[in-house]
């Protein structure tokens, strides 16, 4: 079929007209094959201009449209809408930019005109190769699987449970509550941790929309956003298959294993405790030495494992200050020393907590190196002085690290692990709780070390992301300009699978070809760039379409 192409040149007031000879453009273009009509307009994006464009498209019965005007970033959407209103598929249109890329940057009017003609010719050659593209929608399952029954997993579940979707909460241990349950008090107000966590557990257990599975683990995950199929192992020998639209990973953290660092004397000397052991001691009500006597002097060591892990865990300084408060309230006469490197106490409430703690007579000692000895702490200051401090109890603040099954889970979910081995977020600034696998979200220490409020915020954020995108009864609209792989040309080398960031390509073992999942594809075209056989193509930016532009550029 011979296309009937309409070319519309926008003057953009004086912006294009002053530096591009529009008469000459029109004259040159109108003689080209396929061109049904060439029109100029003072300002095509104005109400009047859009009306003119719409009527002209209809009047001439056009099958392809070229608009020569400004940047597609400015008005591509505007003119696509006009095309739609005029009854033509908006992807049969091309906006070519003769303002930002000709009129405004080329000094010589003749040269600018020449360049504008070239751009229009390129668009003219391109549009016959455009195809009707349609928006696609898929049905989705609004139910959600939450992995991890700690504070983040529970918070996410509670917000997600609104009556119109089911939440499956999978917990590895036999109880909900996670690490927060192992804490005595919460910063900075020193409230009982148990009160807060118990209330959350109760809310979760009472919710009709949340189904909790304890002693359970995820075995297998298939499918993708909107349509995941998950196999869960419950207890010793029960298995369950769940169908969900999204998955939230809130598996928390592990504490750095102190046995790796003998210099801290953990397991070697009596009365050397980890932070969680010290919390337990406080929950039980008494701070006592092995011999049953209260300690007279306690050293709290920060940054244990920081160097080895390569990051600051962000929470230890504050909870070490909290420990000093535990001690001062139970044993007011005990001597407490905080051995720290850098005090990391960001945020509006924490400095005051530090000042108050200091005012209670707590010593702050900055160390460069530290070693635990029997009944003492040996340390080197920043200026190189070696000192010893005798203490009868040591509390260690070990780094936060990814929980033990992070690697296994990441592999199962096809999400990569980033710095420190934590789950890699989709974007460190703008998308901290999603991953490059659409439909898989992360919250709390799964994403990186953080404190309780930040973990809860992330859990709430995950709820925000899911509630705003996976809506019961509403179909999911997909990206239009996705990739496709020709079955006939694909040689089955699977290079495209490797380069796809979004896991949007799978391999059809039967046919021995790669296939694009349109639900996950975002249309970057990396698979096209990597395909050795020319089988991959990205809609609206096909090799043929781009090639036409190249040819015209070099005419």
């Amino acid at each position, binding site marked *: 079929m011979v296309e009937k192409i309409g070319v519309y040149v926008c003057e953009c007031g004086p912006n294009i007209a002053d530096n591009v000879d529009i008469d000459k453009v029109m004259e040159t273009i109108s003689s080209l094959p396929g061109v049904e009509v060439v029109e100029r307009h003072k300002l095509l994006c104005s109400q009047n201009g859009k009306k003119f464009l719409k009527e002209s498209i209809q009047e001439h019965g056009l099958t392809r449209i070229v608009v020569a005007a400004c940047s597609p970033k400015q008005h591509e959407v505007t003119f696509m809408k006009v095309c739609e209103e005029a009854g033509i598929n908006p992807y049969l249109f091309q906006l070519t930019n003769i303002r930002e890329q000709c009129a405004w940057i080329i000094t010589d009017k003749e040269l600018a005109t020449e360049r504008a003609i070239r751009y229009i010719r390129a668009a003219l050659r391109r549009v016959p190769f455009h195809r009707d593209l349609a928006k696609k929608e898929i049905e989705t399952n609004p139910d959600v699987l939450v992995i991890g029954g700690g504070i983040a997993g529970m918070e996410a579940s509670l*917000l997600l449970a609104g009556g119109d979707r089911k939440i499956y909460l999978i917990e590895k241990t036999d109880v909900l509550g996670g690490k927060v349950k192992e804490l005595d008090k919460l910063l900075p107000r020193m409230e009982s941790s148990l009160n807060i966590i118990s209330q959350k557990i109760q809310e979760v257990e009472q919710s009709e929309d949340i189904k909790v599975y304890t002693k359970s683990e995820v075995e297998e995950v298939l499918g993708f956003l909107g349509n995941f199929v998950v196999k869960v192992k419950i207890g010793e020998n029960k298995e369950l298959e769940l169908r969900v639209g999204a998955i939230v990973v809130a598996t928390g953290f592990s504490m750095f294993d102190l046995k790796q660092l003998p210099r801290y004397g953990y397991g070697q000397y009596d009365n050397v405790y980890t932070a969680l052991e010290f919390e337990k001691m406080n929950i039980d009500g008494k701070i006592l030495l092995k011999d049953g006597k209260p300690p007279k002097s306690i050293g709290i060591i920060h940054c244990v494992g920081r160097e080895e892990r390569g990051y600051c865990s962000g929470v230890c300084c504050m909870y070490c200050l909290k420990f000093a408060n535990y001690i001062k309230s139970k044993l007011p006469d005990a001597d407490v020393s905080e051995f720290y490197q850098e005090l990391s106490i960001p945020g509006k409430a924490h400095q005051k907590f530090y000042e108050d703690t200091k005012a209670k007579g707590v010593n702050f000692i900055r160390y460069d190196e530290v070693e635990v000895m029997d009944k003492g702490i040996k340390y080197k200051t920043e200026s190189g002085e070696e000192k010893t401090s005798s203490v009868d109890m040591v509390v260690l603040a070990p780094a936060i690290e990814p929980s033990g099954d992070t690697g296994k889970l990441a592999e199962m979910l096809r999400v990569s692990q980033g710095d420190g081995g934590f789950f890699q977020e989709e974007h460190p600034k703008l998308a901290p709780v999603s991953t490059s696998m659409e439909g898989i979200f992360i919250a709390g220490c799964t994403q990186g070390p953080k404190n309780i409020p930040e973990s809860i915020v992330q859990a*709430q954020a995950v709820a925000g992301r899911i509630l705003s995108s996976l809506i019961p009864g509403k179909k999911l609209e997909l990206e239009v300009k996705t990739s496709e792989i020709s079955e006939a040309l694909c040689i089955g080398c699977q290079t495209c699978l490797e380069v796809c960031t979004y896991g949007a390509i799978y391999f059809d073992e039967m046919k021995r070809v790669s296939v694009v999942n349109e639900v996950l594809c975002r249309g970057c075209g990396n698979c096209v760039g990597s395909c050795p056989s020319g089988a991959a193509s990205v809609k609206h930016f096909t090799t043929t379409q781009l090639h036409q532009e190249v040819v015209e550029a070099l005419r």
Partner: protein
Amino acid sequence: MDNGNILVIGAGVAGINASLSLADSGRKVYLVEQTSYIGGTVIKFEKVFSNMECATCMVAPKQQELLAKENIELFTISEVLKVEGSLGNFVVKVKKKARYVDLKACIGCSACFEPCPVSVKNEFEEGLSERKAIYIPCPGALPNIPAIDTENCVRFNGKDCKLCKEACMFEAIDFEQKDEEIELKVGAIVVATGFSSFDPKEIPKYGYKKFSDVYSALEFERMFASNGPTTGEIKLRNGESPKSVAIVHCVGREEKGYCSAICCMNSLKFVHYLKEKLPDVKISEFCSDLCIPGKSYEKFYEQTKTMGVDIIRFEDIEIKEEGKGISVKYKTDTKGSSLPVDMVILSTAIEPKKDASKLAKILGISQDEHGFFAEKHSEIASVDTSTEGIFIVGCAQDPKDIQNSVAQSEAAVGKILSRGT
């Protein structure tokens, strides 16, 4: 019946993000922004730590998406005057100030700037360059539509000037526009008004505004910006490149009584800025405690150290005149010393937005001892306020980085959508 529409106050990165998610869910969003542009403080940055990503590249797609979104109604140069009602049924009065440029007619060609006879300091550029009375804050600002600043425009000060109107080929300039008061009915409100920077003039020992080459962090940020006043050239007031630079952390920390959380990383970022443009420049970072929490930040610190920077832990510091130049006089725990430098950059504290108390009164929410909006519960309900249906996100609640601001904006969305507000 409860109203599903949402009011978002502040079009910085947190406000934009919350608006987009709410709009995606099908809600109608009213986004009220005080300035004439969207993007908040983030668009003043050339790059963001710790991956040194170009801030504009990161935020522009979001800004464009916002401007194209049909169910988001954006009010720029606007402020909230009054809020009544409660969760599900707030009645909000918004003052929409006249821009004097028709948003629909203007195409953003900037032909109106040239003839304007006025020249005043550009606040967006931290006063490092001048702008006209009809202006956009910087090239690339969105929406790319100028506004007339009536305080400085000669026409609004008694003269019959209409040069900009004459220069406009699109009849977009309308001196007759009037401020409007609009009433909005919404079910919930998200406050994302951001922060102000501590003014180092308040502490004379830093020599800010006394010595010409002592800059605030934001001033330096704009100096490095490729769309900024020097198109990214780092130079002293005399036009020369600095050979030595001191970056001072924790400026205003003691006075404010808290650590602003982002300044250490931001100051380390400046080393990258400086070394990129001036590989031989000598840099000294004066810090107290290094606050670089999280999985990625220490790696950035280690990398920065290899670029050639002296990190000096100070206990006391003062910027002094020395000869024709300036020097940093400082005390560590063991000694006192003095370091002559060409340029000083002050990493200033984050403080509550200057008009936070006014807005707090209008909204009927409380402020904490520092003046930030007070959350309902610092540990488990940090985006909620004492008033149900009013949420606080980003630096309006507490100093924080972009990641945490964005997470909070999504958290507010989660809270709003989960209740079916």
